[in-house]
């Protein structure tokens, strides 16, 4: 197994936490320093989406759009047409929540390499409630031809993903970010490639597949399972589309069952993607953890993860259930 240079102990009390969006902000600044064609636009949420670093360093390459998400992505399409590498950001609930058709026609069908950045995705947005907790964005973006969909697992990975997207000039992409501080489980040496899934932990009994903020919780779940004598494999899938089918199928064939986890609707989300793949190529028992056809609500982030069954404990329980269903 390739050394991914992850932190040694995900259960360490002193694990550093940082909002994933902050990594995006650093990555965008670096991308701007590397390539003068990198430009940014935002719909009145410059600091919240962490674009302020870029805006301060490159005011001439930063465009304030105001609260107008349809204009945000279509101006982006125009910028890309002239050779720019535009990153356009808002809250995920508004972009891509409100401007899907413009993304479909002027970016995906039109093949323009706009990078759509949706922050504050998932229920862990917290007290703002269901209107602002975007859960359908993965499904909305994954269904579009030509679209890349990435949900980084921590702020360092968000930084790497941003740099990778800036270098991948021609392709439309959606970058999904979370608001709350998330434990950092990778390091400066951890690799990132668009379209690659990473085996964070090797095991033979069950495959735990997750994306975004849920990967930390899956790693903790694997530790819990280990105490019960279960050898779980954990695969982190930052790129939900294009899906790294080879890595996932190899694991499913080895373990014979899986659970998936995401802070999003499982319908059309990562769970949907894995179930589609498995159904066609390696049908094994799969339990999908995420939002099941319902909206979120106000509350503290940790309360909400508990309330909606998105913790390591829930994942470990689901793993036991799948193991009992696995073909002997």
């Amino acid at each position, binding site marked *: 197994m390739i050394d991914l240079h992850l932190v040694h102990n995900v259960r360490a009390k002193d694990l550093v936490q940082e909002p994933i969006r902050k990594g995006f902000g650093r990555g965008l600044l670096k991308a701007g320093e590397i390539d003068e064609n990198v430009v940014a636009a935002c719909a009145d949420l410059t600091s919240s989406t962490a674009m302020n670093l870029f805006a301060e360093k490159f005011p001439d*390459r930063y465009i304030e759009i105001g609260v107008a998400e349809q*204009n945000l992505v279509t101006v*982006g*399409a*125009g910028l890309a047409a*002239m050779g720019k590498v535009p990153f356009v950001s808002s809250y995920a609930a508004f972009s891509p929540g409100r401007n899907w058709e*413009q993304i479909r026609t002027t970016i995906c*069908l*039109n093949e323009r390499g706009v990078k759509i950045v949706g922050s504050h995705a998932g229920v862990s947005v917290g007290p703002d409630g269901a209107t602002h907790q975007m859960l359908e964005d993965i499904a909305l973006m994954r269904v579009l031809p030509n679209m890349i969909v990435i949900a980084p697992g921590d702020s360092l990975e968000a930084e790497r993903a941003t740099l990778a997207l800036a270098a991948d000039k021609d392709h439309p992409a959606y970058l999904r970010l979370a608001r709350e501080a998330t434990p950092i489980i990778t390091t400066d040496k951890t690799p990132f490639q668009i379209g690659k899934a990473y085996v964070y932990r090797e095991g033979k009994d069950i495959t735990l597949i997750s994306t975004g903020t849920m990967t930390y919780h899956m790693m903790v779940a694997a530790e819990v399972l280990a105490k019960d004598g279960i050898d779980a494999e954990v695969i982190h899938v930052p790129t939900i589309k294009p899906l790294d089918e080879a890595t996932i199928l190899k694991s499913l064939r080895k373990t014979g069952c899986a659970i998936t986890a995401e802070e999003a609707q499982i319908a059309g989300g990562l769970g949907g993607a894995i179930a589609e793949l498995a159904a066609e190529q390696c049908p094994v028992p799969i339990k999908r953890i995420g939002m099941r056809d319902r909206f979120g609500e106000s509350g503290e982030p940790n309360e909400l993860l508990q309330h909606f069954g998105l913790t390591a404990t829930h994942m470990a329980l689901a793993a036991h259930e799948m193991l009992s269903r696995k073909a002997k």
Partner: protein
Amino acid sequence: MHIWLPEPATTAIITSSMRQIYSIDELELIANDIRQDIIKMLLEAKSGHSAGPLGLTDIFTALYFNVMKHDPKNPDWDDRDILILSNGHCTPVRYATMARAGYFDRAELMTLRKLGSRLQGHPERTKLPGVETTSGPLGSGLSQAAGMATAMRMDGQHHRWVYVITGDGELNEGNIWEAAMFIGKNKLNNLITIVDRNNIQIDGPTETVMPLEDLRGKWEAFGWHVLEIDGNDVEAVIDACSMARAIVEKPVVIIAHTIPGKGVDFMEYDFHWHGSPPNAEQAKTALKELRTLRGRIKSEADHD
């Protein structure tokens, strides 16, 4: 307030291969040819929009044969002006004009809307060089043009313009006014918008479906300079574009009053022709009328 002014060209501006200068009479003949091609295309395709393309023909003729800097043999030429057709359903007029200008062979016009054609029912950039963007769903062309004009400014590209054509029914779309606000704020004077004010949309007259008036007042309130012209007068279109390029303190919108279905009397002013093609008999009548009109243009030209 800082106003972004075009700087004098430091080197000679390269002119395109469209060097030929056409007289107004010649342009009217070209427009007539294009209208005939539109009728033939729609008949062959058996579906598509008639009224808008016929109404827009004089504007397209002016843009491609006089106003714009472009090169049919090099559609991606770096210094070209850009034309965004926001109301993509009017694409037959663009295809017919591009073919006349030499972008592709006119015979290809007969493939409109057919399987495997580069001439999709609504225009797709990746299918046909020179189309500039993919459109059809209304309201997004102005914003894309704004992005292009902004990028040109960032790169210090002077003497280069983005022209946008929108429908009037299209102005129902919220995206248009988001763009209008943005362009007004940034005083994008390298972007020239032409509204095809033909007063019809699918469900009926624009003022019945969703009133647009005071249309001039709306644009002015968003910080735009408004010109109003007869959009079926080629010379007026050329003059308005010249004036628009000379106005630097505000973005310019040209409200071009056009007659939907222009040139074919039974189609003129009738909103039922918005989304329908002619049948064989109607096409025959339309072509006959256009040929007769052509005779009139020619004879008038002869008298000059």
